[in-house]
Protein backbone atom coordinates (compact mmCIF):
# COMPACT_ATOMS: atom_id res chain seq x y z
CA UNK A 1 0.00 0.00 0.00
CA UNK A 2 1.25 3.52 -0.69
CA UNK A 3 2.78 4.92 2.50
CA UNK A 4 2.27 8.65 2.68
CA UNK A 5 2.33 11.44 5.24
CA UNK A 6 -0.53 13.91 4.85
CA UNK A 7 0.13 17.22 6.58
CA UNK A 8 -3.04 18.86 7.88
CA UNK A 9 -0.90 21.91 8.13
CA UNK A 10 -1.24 25.10 10.08
CA UNK A 11 -3.20 26.51 7.15
CA UNK A 12 -6.06 24.19 6.24
CA UNK A 13 -9.67 24.93 5.37
CA UNK A 14 -10.85 22.50 8.04
CA UNK A 15 -9.09 24.37 10.83
CA UNK A 16 -10.02 27.92 11.75
CA UNK A 17 -6.86 28.10 13.81
CA UNK A 18 -3.25 27.00 13.15
CA UNK A 19 -2.67 23.44 14.30
CA UNK A 20 -0.34 21.01 12.61
CA UNK A 21 -1.29 17.35 12.40
CA UNK A 22 0.82 14.88 10.41
CA UNK A 23 -1.05 11.73 9.44
CA UNK A 24 0.90 8.63 8.43
CA UNK A 25 -1.43 7.01 5.94
CA UNK A 26 -1.20 3.60 4.26
CA UNK A 27 -3.79 3.48 1.50
CA UNK A 28 -6.96 5.05 2.91
CA UNK A 29 -6.25 4.10 6.55
CA UNK A 30 -4.44 6.26 9.12
CA UNK A 31 -1.66 4.38 10.84
CA UNK A 32 -0.03 7.15 12.84
CA UNK A 33 -0.59 10.74 13.87
CA UNK A 34 1.48 13.49 15.44
CA UNK A 35 -0.18 16.64 16.72
CA UNK A 36 1.97 19.69 17.37
CA UNK A 37 0.72 22.99 18.67
CA UNK A 38 2.29 26.26 19.71
CA UNK A 39 1.45 28.43 16.73
CA UNK A 40 -0.91 30.50 18.89
CA UNK A 41 1.21 30.56 22.06
CA UNK A 42 1.22 34.22 23.25
CA UNK A 43 2.70 33.63 26.70
CA UNK A 44 -0.43 34.88 28.49
CA UNK A 45 0.76 33.47 31.82
CA UNK A 46 3.86 35.63 31.65
CA UNK A 47 1.86 38.70 30.61
CA UNK A 48 -0.52 38.18 33.56
CA UNK A 49 2.39 38.72 35.92
CA UNK A 50 3.01 42.17 34.43
CA UNK A 51 -0.51 43.49 34.95
CA UNK A 52 -2.64 44.34 37.98
CA UNK A 53 -5.51 42.07 39.01
CA UNK A 54 -8.12 44.33 37.42
CA UNK A 55 -6.21 44.67 34.11
CA UNK A 56 -5.85 40.90 33.89
CA UNK A 57 -9.60 40.43 33.37
CA UNK A 58 -9.26 42.15 29.99
CA UNK A 59 -6.21 40.04 29.08
CA UNK A 60 -7.66 36.73 30.29
CA UNK A 61 -10.80 37.36 28.25
CA UNK A 62 -8.74 37.42 25.06
CA UNK A 63 -7.25 33.97 25.49
CA UNK A 64 -10.09 32.47 23.50
CA UNK A 65 -12.84 34.10 21.50
CA UNK A 66 -15.44 31.37 22.01
CA UNK A 67 -15.24 30.87 25.78
CA UNK A 68 -14.08 34.33 26.87
CA UNK A 69 -16.66 34.59 29.63
CA UNK A 70 -15.65 31.21 31.11
CA UNK A 71 -12.06 32.43 31.40
CA UNK A 72 -12.99 35.67 33.16
CA UNK A 73 -15.42 33.80 35.46
CA UNK A 74 -12.71 31.33 36.53
CA UNK A 75 -10.09 34.05 36.94
CA UNK A 76 -12.38 36.36 38.92
CA UNK A 77 -13.52 33.50 41.17
CA UNK A 78 -9.90 32.55 41.90
CA UNK A 79 -8.99 36.16 42.74
CA UNK A 80 -12.18 36.69 44.78
CA UNK A 81 -11.49 33.60 46.88
CA UNK A 82 -7.91 34.86 47.24
CA UNK A 83 -9.23 38.13 48.63
CA UNK A 84 -11.92 36.36 50.67
CA UNK A 85 -14.55 38.40 48.81
CA UNK A 86 -18.17 37.23 48.52
CA UNK A 87 -19.91 38.48 45.36
CA UNK A 88 -23.56 39.61 45.59
CA UNK A 89 -26.33 37.10 44.73
CA UNK A 90 -27.45 39.07 41.66
CA UNK A 91 -23.92 39.07 40.25
CA UNK A 92 -23.72 35.27 40.68
CA UNK A 93 -26.98 34.84 38.77
CA UNK A 94 -25.89 37.14 35.92
CA UNK A 95 -22.58 35.27 35.68
CA UNK A 96 -24.47 32.01 35.26
CA UNK A 97 -26.68 33.59 32.59
CA UNK A 98 -23.70 34.72 30.51
CA UNK A 99 -21.96 31.35 31.05
CA UNK A 100 -24.96 29.45 29.73
CA UNK A 101 -25.53 31.81 26.76
CA UNK A 102 -21.90 31.30 25.87
CA UNK A 103 -22.30 27.53 26.11
CA UNK A 104 -25.21 27.65 23.68
CA UNK A 105 -23.39 29.78 21.11
CA UNK A 106 -20.23 27.67 21.46
CA UNK A 107 -22.15 24.42 20.85
CA UNK A 108 -23.96 25.89 17.84
CA UNK A 109 -20.68 27.16 16.45
CA UNK A 110 -19.28 23.65 16.88
CA UNK A 111 -22.29 22.09 15.13
CA UNK A 112 -21.65 24.40 12.16
CA UNK A 113 -17.95 23.57 12.05
CA UNK A 114 -18.70 19.83 12.19
CA UNK A 115 -21.31 20.16 9.44
CA UNK A 116 -18.84 22.01 7.21
CA UNK A 117 -16.18 19.37 7.92
CA UNK A 118 -18.47 16.59 6.67
CA UNK A 119 -19.49 18.67 3.69
CA UNK A 120 -22.98 19.62 4.88
CA UNK A 121 -22.70 23.37 4.22
CA UNK A 122 -26.44 23.92 4.59
CA UNK A 123 -26.36 22.94 8.26
CA UNK A 124 -23.28 25.12 8.75
CA UNK A 125 -25.26 28.08 7.46
CA UNK A 126 -28.39 27.26 9.49
CA UNK A 127 -26.47 26.65 12.73
CA UNK A 128 -24.56 29.90 12.42
CA UNK A 129 -27.66 31.85 11.43
CA UNK A 130 -29.47 30.70 14.59
CA UNK A 131 -26.33 31.37 16.62
CA UNK A 132 -26.70 35.05 15.70
CA UNK A 133 -29.83 35.14 17.93
CA UNK A 134 -27.65 34.24 20.92
CA UNK A 135 -24.97 36.74 19.95
CA UNK A 136 -27.67 39.43 19.75
CA UNK A 137 -28.77 38.57 23.29
CA UNK A 138 -25.21 38.75 24.61
CA UNK A 139 -24.53 41.97 22.74
CA UNK A 140 -27.69 43.51 24.15
CA UNK A 141 -26.66 42.48 27.66
CA UNK A 142 -23.00 43.36 27.65
CA UNK A 143 -22.38 45.41 24.50
CA UNK A 144 -19.98 42.89 22.98
CA UNK A 145 -20.72 39.90 20.71
CA UNK A 146 -17.54 37.97 21.49
CA UNK A 147 -15.57 39.85 24.14
CA UNK A 148 -18.24 40.82 26.65
CA UNK A 149 -16.20 42.30 29.56
CA UNK A 150 -19.14 41.25 31.75
CA UNK A 151 -16.99 40.08 34.70
CA UNK A 152 -14.93 42.26 37.00
CA UNK A 153 -13.15 41.13 40.17
CA UNK A 154 -15.88 41.28 42.80
CA UNK A 155 -18.96 40.85 40.59
CA UNK A 156 -20.32 41.83 37.20
CA UNK A 157 -20.54 45.05 35.25
CA UNK A 158 -23.74 44.12 33.40
CA UNK A 159 -27.24 44.83 34.71
CA UNK A 160 -30.55 43.49 33.39
CA UNK A 161 -33.61 45.74 33.47
CA UNK A 162 -37.09 44.17 33.83
CA UNK A 163 -37.96 44.97 30.18
CA UNK A 164 -34.76 43.26 29.08
CA UNK A 165 -35.75 40.20 31.11
CA UNK A 166 -39.05 40.07 29.22
CA UNK A 167 -37.34 40.50 25.86
CA UNK A 168 -34.72 37.86 26.64
CA UNK A 169 -37.36 35.32 27.70
CA UNK A 170 -39.21 35.94 24.46
CA UNK A 171 -36.04 35.50 22.40
CA UNK A 172 -35.18 32.33 24.30
CA UNK A 173 -38.60 30.88 23.43
CA UNK A 174 -38.07 31.71 19.74
CA UNK A 175 -34.61 30.16 19.88
CA UNK A 176 -35.98 27.01 21.51
CA UNK A 177 -38.31 26.41 18.56
CA UNK A 178 -35.35 26.78 16.18
CA UNK A 179 -33.49 24.16 18.19
CA UNK A 180 -36.23 21.63 17.42
CA UNK A 181 -34.94 21.60 13.82
CA UNK A 182 -31.43 20.64 14.92
CA UNK A 183 -32.67 18.02 17.38
CA UNK A 184 -34.64 16.38 14.60
CA UNK A 185 -31.65 16.63 12.26
CA UNK A 186 -29.34 14.86 14.72
CA UNK A 187 -31.91 12.11 15.29
CA UNK A 188 -33.23 11.48 11.81
CA UNK A 189 -31.00 12.84 9.03
CA UNK A 190 -29.48 9.78 7.37
CA UNK A 191 -26.74 11.62 5.53
CA UNK A 192 -25.61 13.19 8.85
CA UNK A 193 -25.68 9.75 10.48
CA UNK A 194 -23.69 8.16 7.71
CA UNK A 195 -20.73 10.48 8.43
CA UNK A 196 -20.93 10.59 12.23
CA UNK A 197 -22.46 7.37 13.60
CA UNK A 198 -19.82 5.03 15.06
CA UNK A 199 -16.91 7.18 13.91
CA UNK A 200 -13.95 8.07 16.13
CA UNK A 201 -15.26 5.95 19.02
CA UNK A 202 -13.52 6.79 22.32
CA UNK A 203 -13.82 4.29 25.18
CA UNK A 204 -14.29 5.22 28.83
CA UNK A 205 -10.81 4.04 29.81
CA UNK A 206 -9.31 6.19 27.03
CA UNK A 207 -11.17 9.10 28.66
CA UNK A 208 -9.64 8.17 32.01
CA UNK A 209 -6.17 7.65 30.56
CA UNK A 210 -6.06 11.12 29.01
CA UNK A 211 -8.18 12.91 31.68
CA UNK A 212 -10.59 14.04 29.01
CA UNK A 213 -13.25 16.48 30.16
CA UNK A 214 -16.42 18.13 28.98
CA UNK A 215 -18.89 16.88 26.35
CA UNK A 216 -16.42 14.42 24.72
CA UNK A 217 -15.92 12.71 28.12
CA UNK A 218 -19.62 12.77 28.96
CA UNK A 219 -20.36 11.27 25.53
CA UNK A 220 -18.26 8.25 26.53
CA UNK A 221 -20.10 7.73 29.80
CA UNK A 222 -17.89 9.71 32.22
CA UNK A 223 -20.46 11.45 34.40
CA UNK A 224 -18.52 14.53 35.57
CA UNK A 225 -19.87 18.08 35.42
CA UNK A 226 -18.38 20.79 37.59
CA UNK A 227 -21.64 22.73 37.65
CA UNK A 228 -23.08 19.89 39.70
CA UNK A 229 -19.97 18.32 41.35
CA UNK A 230 -18.35 21.59 42.49
CA UNK A 231 -21.08 24.23 42.01
CA UNK A 232 -19.81 27.78 41.62
CA UNK A 233 -21.56 31.16 41.10
CA UNK A 234 -25.29 30.40 41.45
CA UNK A 235 -25.40 26.84 40.10
CA UNK A 236 -26.12 25.33 43.52
CA UNK A 237 -29.57 26.96 43.57
CA UNK A 238 -30.51 26.10 39.95
CA UNK A 239 -32.00 22.86 38.65
CA UNK A 240 -30.58 21.19 35.56
CA UNK A 241 -29.51 17.65 34.64
CA UNK A 242 -26.16 16.48 33.31
CA UNK A 243 -26.36 14.82 29.91
CA UNK A 244 -24.31 11.71 29.30
CA UNK A 245 -24.26 9.16 26.50
CA UNK A 246 -22.16 6.04 26.12
CA UNK A 247 -21.49 5.84 22.39
CA UNK A 248 -18.28 7.85 22.47
CA UNK A 249 -18.52 8.52 18.72
CA UNK A 250 -18.98 11.84 16.93
CA UNK A 251 -22.75 11.32 16.84
CA UNK A 252 -23.01 10.82 20.63
CA UNK A 253 -21.00 14.00 21.11
CA UNK A 254 -23.43 15.83 18.86
CA UNK A 255 -26.27 14.36 20.89
CA UNK A 256 -24.71 15.42 24.21
CA UNK A 257 -23.98 18.95 23.00
CA UNK A 258 -27.47 19.42 21.56
CA UNK A 259 -29.15 18.22 24.78
CA UNK A 260 -26.80 20.43 26.79
CA UNK A 261 -27.94 23.40 24.72
CA UNK A 262 -31.50 22.64 25.76
CA UNK A 263 -30.47 22.42 29.41
CA UNK A 264 -28.68 25.74 29.04
CA UNK A 265 -31.81 27.39 27.64
CA UNK A 266 -33.73 26.02 30.67
CA UNK A 267 -31.02 27.37 32.97
CA UNK A 268 -31.15 30.81 31.34
CA UNK A 269 -34.91 30.90 31.76
CA UNK A 270 -34.60 29.97 35.45
CA UNK A 271 -31.96 32.67 36.02
CA UNK A 272 -34.10 35.31 34.33
CA UNK A 273 -37.21 34.35 36.29
CA UNK A 274 -35.48 34.12 39.71
CA UNK A 275 -33.10 37.08 39.27
CA UNK A 276 -32.64 38.40 42.85
CA UNK A 277 -32.36 42.12 43.61
CA UNK A 278 -29.16 43.65 44.95
CA UNK A 279 -26.09 45.49 43.75
CA UNK A 280 -23.80 44.12 41.09
CA UNK A 281 -20.34 44.05 42.62
CA UNK A 282 -18.47 44.54 45.88
CA UNK A 283 -15.36 46.75 45.89
CA UNK A 284 -12.14 44.79 45.48
CA UNK A 285 -8.97 45.97 47.25
CA UNK A 286 -5.99 46.87 45.04
CA UNK A 287 -3.43 44.88 47.00
CA UNK A 288 -3.96 41.23 47.90
CA UNK A 289 -2.50 39.43 50.95
CA UNK A 290 -0.02 36.69 50.02
CA UNK A 291 -1.70 33.36 49.34
CA UNK A 292 -2.84 31.03 46.56
CA UNK A 293 -6.24 29.98 45.27
CA UNK A 294 -7.70 27.57 42.75
CA UNK A 295 -10.89 27.87 40.65
CA UNK A 296 -12.59 25.31 38.41
CA UNK A 297 -15.32 26.25 35.93
CA UNK A 298 -17.30 24.14 33.47
CA UNK A 299 -16.53 25.92 30.18
CA UNK A 300 -18.32 24.82 26.98
CA UNK A 301 -15.46 22.42 26.25
CA UNK A 302 -15.01 21.09 29.76
CA UNK A 303 -13.16 21.77 33.03
CA UNK A 304 -11.32 25.10 32.96
CA UNK A 305 -8.78 25.36 35.80
CA UNK A 306 -7.20 28.53 37.18
CA UNK A 307 -4.49 28.83 39.85
CA UNK A 308 -3.59 32.31 41.14
CA UNK A 309 -0.84 33.08 43.61
CA UNK A 310 -0.32 36.51 45.17
CA UNK A 311 2.72 37.95 46.89
CA UNK A 312 1.08 40.95 48.56
CA UNK A 313 1.62 43.42 45.70
CA UNK A 314 -1.13 44.57 43.33
CA UNK A 315 0.07 42.16 40.59
CA UNK A 316 -0.36 38.37 40.73
CA UNK A 317 2.89 36.44 41.33
CA UNK A 318 1.67 33.54 39.18
CA UNK A 319 -1.43 32.81 37.11
CA UNK A 320 -1.75 29.31 35.72
CA UNK A 321 -4.62 28.28 33.46
CA UNK A 322 -5.36 24.82 32.08
CA UNK A 323 -7.90 24.73 29.25
CA UNK A 324 -9.99 21.66 28.37
CA UNK A 325 -8.69 21.40 24.79
CA UNK A 326 -5.17 20.37 25.87
CA UNK A 327 -6.07 16.80 26.96
CA UNK A 328 -8.43 16.59 23.99
CA UNK A 329 -5.56 17.30 21.57
CA UNK A 330 -3.33 14.70 23.26
CA UNK A 331 -6.14 12.12 23.13
CA UNK A 332 -6.69 12.99 19.45
CA UNK A 333 -3.11 11.98 18.71
CA UNK A 334 -3.88 8.48 19.98
CA UNK A 335 -7.43 8.09 18.58
CA UNK A 336 -6.52 9.04 14.98
CA UNK A 337 -4.69 5.79 14.10
CA UNK A 338 -7.17 3.27 12.73
CA UNK A 339 -9.49 5.83 11.14
CA UNK A 340 -10.26 6.20 7.44
CA UNK A 341 -8.68 9.34 6.00
CA UNK A 342 -12.13 10.61 5.06
CA UNK A 343 -13.25 10.36 8.70
CA UNK A 344 -10.31 12.34 10.04
CA UNK A 345 -12.06 15.61 9.21
CA UNK A 346 -15.21 14.53 11.09
CA UNK A 347 -13.22 13.36 14.14
CA UNK A 348 -11.07 16.52 14.32
CA UNK A 349 -14.12 18.73 13.95
CA UNK A 350 -16.07 16.48 16.37
CA UNK A 351 -13.50 17.10 19.07
CA UNK A 352 -14.41 20.82 19.19
CA UNK A 353 -10.81 22.00 19.47
CA UNK A 354 -10.08 25.54 20.57
CA UNK A 355 -6.40 25.96 19.76
CA UNK A 356 -6.21 29.50 21.12
CA UNK A 357 -7.25 27.99 24.49
CA UNK A 358 -4.77 25.14 24.29
CA UNK A 359 -1.73 27.28 23.37
CA UNK A 360 -2.49 30.29 25.66
Amino acid at each position, binding site marked *: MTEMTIPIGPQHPLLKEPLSIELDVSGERVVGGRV*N*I*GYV*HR*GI*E*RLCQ*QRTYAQNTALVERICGICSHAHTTAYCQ*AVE*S*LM*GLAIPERAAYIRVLMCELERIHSHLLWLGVLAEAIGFTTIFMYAWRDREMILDMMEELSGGRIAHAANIVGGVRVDISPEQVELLLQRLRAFDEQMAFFRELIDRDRSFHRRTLGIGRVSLDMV*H*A*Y*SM*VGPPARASGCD*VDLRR*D*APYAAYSSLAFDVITADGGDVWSRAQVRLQETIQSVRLCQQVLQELPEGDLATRAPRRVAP*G*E*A*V*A*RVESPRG*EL*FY*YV*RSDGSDRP*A*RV*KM*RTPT*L*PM*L*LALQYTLPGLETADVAAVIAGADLCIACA*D*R
Partner: protein
Amino acid sequence: MDATAIERTLGQACSAPVELLPLATCAELFVDIPSASLLAAMEGLMREHDLYHLTTITALRDGDGFLVLYHLWLGGGLTLRVRCSGAPPSLPSVCHLLPVAEWYEREVHDLFGIRFEGHPNLKPLLLPEDWVGPPPMLAEETP
Protein backbone atom coordinates in the same frame (compact mmCIF):
# COMPACT_ATOMS: atom_id res chain seq x y z
CA MET B 1 -13.18 11.99 48.92
CA ASP B 2 -12.38 11.43 52.62
CA ALA B 3 -9.21 13.23 53.71
CA THR B 4 -8.23 10.70 56.42
CA ALA B 5 -8.02 7.77 53.98
CA ILE B 6 -5.92 9.82 51.64
CA GLU B 7 -3.69 10.93 54.48
CA ARG B 8 -3.12 7.28 55.43
CA THR B 9 -2.30 6.30 51.83
CA LEU B 10 0.11 9.17 51.33
CA GLY B 11 1.65 8.53 54.73
CA GLN B 12 2.44 4.97 53.72
CA ALA B 13 3.78 6.14 50.34
CA CYS B 14 6.09 8.76 51.82
CA SER B 15 6.88 6.59 54.91
CA ALA B 16 6.51 9.79 56.99
CA PRO B 17 3.43 11.38 58.57
CA VAL B 18 1.69 13.61 56.04
CA GLU B 19 -0.89 16.31 56.73
CA LEU B 20 -3.60 17.58 54.38
CA LEU B 21 -3.99 21.32 54.78
CA PRO B 22 -7.27 22.71 53.44
CA LEU B 23 -6.58 25.98 51.66
CA ALA B 24 -7.85 28.97 53.60
CA THR B 25 -9.28 30.48 50.45
CA CYS B 26 -11.13 27.72 48.62
CA ALA B 27 -12.23 24.07 48.81
CA GLU B 28 -8.88 22.59 47.79
CA LEU B 29 -6.65 20.27 49.82
CA PHE B 30 -2.90 20.84 49.58
CA VAL B 31 -0.32 18.33 50.75
CA ASP B 32 3.49 18.51 50.70
CA ILE B 33 5.22 15.45 49.29
CA PRO B 34 8.98 14.91 49.13
CA SER B 35 10.07 14.60 45.49
CA ALA B 36 11.61 11.15 46.12
CA SER B 37 8.24 9.58 46.96
CA LEU B 38 6.19 11.39 44.30
CA LEU B 39 5.76 8.26 42.17
CA ALA B 40 4.86 6.12 45.18
CA ALA B 41 2.25 8.69 46.26
CA MET B 42 0.70 8.76 42.77
CA GLU B 43 0.57 4.95 42.54
CA GLY B 44 -0.96 4.79 46.03
CA LEU B 45 -3.68 7.24 45.09
CA MET B 46 -4.37 5.48 41.80
CA ARG B 47 -4.54 2.11 43.49
CA GLU B 48 -6.65 2.93 46.50
CA HIS B 49 -8.69 5.98 45.45
CA ASP B 50 -9.00 5.23 41.69
CA LEU B 51 -7.35 8.53 40.81
CA TYR B 52 -7.38 9.04 37.05
CA HIS B 53 -7.78 12.76 36.55
CA LEU B 54 -4.65 14.93 36.61
CA THR B 55 -5.93 18.46 35.91
CA THR B 56 -2.53 20.01 35.32
CA ILE B 57 1.00 20.55 36.64
CA THR B 58 1.80 24.09 37.82
CA ALA B 59 5.38 25.20 38.36
CA LEU B 60 6.44 28.32 40.19
CA ARG B 61 9.69 29.80 41.41
CA ASP B 62 10.15 29.73 45.15
CA GLY B 63 13.44 31.16 46.43
CA ASP B 64 16.22 29.42 44.51
CA GLY B 65 14.29 26.21 43.80
CA PHE B 66 10.92 25.43 42.30
CA LEU B 67 7.55 24.35 43.66
CA VAL B 68 5.71 21.93 41.36
CA LEU B 69 2.02 21.40 42.05
CA TYR B 70 0.18 18.30 40.74
CA HIS B 71 -3.52 19.22 40.72
CA LEU B 72 -5.71 16.09 40.94
CA TRP B 73 -9.46 15.52 41.04
CA LEU B 74 -10.95 12.78 43.20
CA GLY B 75 -14.50 14.08 43.47
CA GLY B 76 -12.84 17.12 45.07
CA GLY B 77 -9.65 19.07 44.42
CA LEU B 78 -6.36 17.67 45.81
CA THR B 79 -2.94 19.16 45.03
CA LEU B 80 0.40 17.47 45.70
CA ARG B 81 3.10 20.09 46.29
CA VAL B 82 6.63 18.96 45.53
CA ARG B 83 9.73 21.06 46.09
CA CYS B 84 12.51 20.54 43.56
CA SER B 85 15.89 22.17 43.32
CA GLY B 86 19.33 21.33 42.06
CA ALA B 87 21.56 22.56 39.20
CA PRO B 88 19.41 21.22 36.39
CA PRO B 89 16.15 21.06 38.41
CA SER B 90 14.59 17.66 37.71
CA LEU B 91 11.72 15.48 38.84
CA PRO B 92 10.65 11.91 38.00
CA SER B 93 8.12 11.87 35.17
CA VAL B 94 4.64 10.48 35.97
CA CYS B 95 3.48 10.08 32.40
CA HIS B 96 3.81 6.28 32.54
CA LEU B 97 1.13 6.36 35.27
CA LEU B 98 -1.02 9.22 33.92
CA PRO B 99 -0.42 9.53 30.14
CA VAL B 100 -1.94 13.02 30.06
CA ALA B 101 1.08 14.29 32.02
CA GLU B 102 3.18 13.91 28.88
CA TRP B 103 2.17 17.34 27.55
CA TYR B 104 1.95 19.07 30.93
CA GLU B 105 5.54 18.06 31.69
CA ARG B 106 6.70 19.21 28.27
CA GLU B 107 5.08 22.60 28.89
CA VAL B 108 6.69 22.95 32.35
CA HIS B 109 10.01 21.98 30.77
CA ASP B 110 9.49 24.63 28.06
CA LEU B 111 8.61 27.48 30.37
CA PHE B 112 10.64 26.67 33.51
CA GLY B 113 13.46 24.43 32.34
CA ILE B 114 12.62 21.65 34.82
CA ARG B 115 13.74 18.28 33.41
CA PHE B 116 11.49 15.22 33.88
CA GLU B 117 13.40 11.93 34.05
CA GLY B 118 11.89 9.17 32.00
CA HIS B 119 9.78 11.40 29.75
CA PRO B 120 9.44 9.83 26.24
CA ASN B 121 10.12 13.01 24.20
CA LEU B 122 10.89 16.24 25.99
CA LYS B 123 10.62 18.33 22.79
CA PRO B 124 9.28 21.90 23.12
CA LEU B 125 5.48 21.88 23.17
CA LEU B 126 4.54 25.55 22.99
CA LEU B 127 7.81 27.28 22.13
CA PRO B 128 9.27 27.12 18.63
CA GLU B 129 11.92 24.41 18.14
CA ASP B 130 14.68 26.99 17.60
CA TRP B 131 13.92 28.85 20.84
CA VAL B 132 17.08 30.50 22.09
CA GLY B 133 17.59 32.06 25.51
CA PRO B 134 16.50 31.11 29.04
CA PRO B 135 13.07 29.59 29.72
CA PRO B 136 10.70 32.55 29.30
CA MET B 137 9.02 32.37 32.69
CA LEU B 138 12.36 32.81 34.42
CA ALA B 139 13.53 35.80 32.40
CA GLU B 140 13.70 38.69 34.84
CA GLU B 141 12.98 41.76 32.73
CA THR B 142 10.17 41.83 30.18
CA PRO B 143 11.71 40.95 26.76
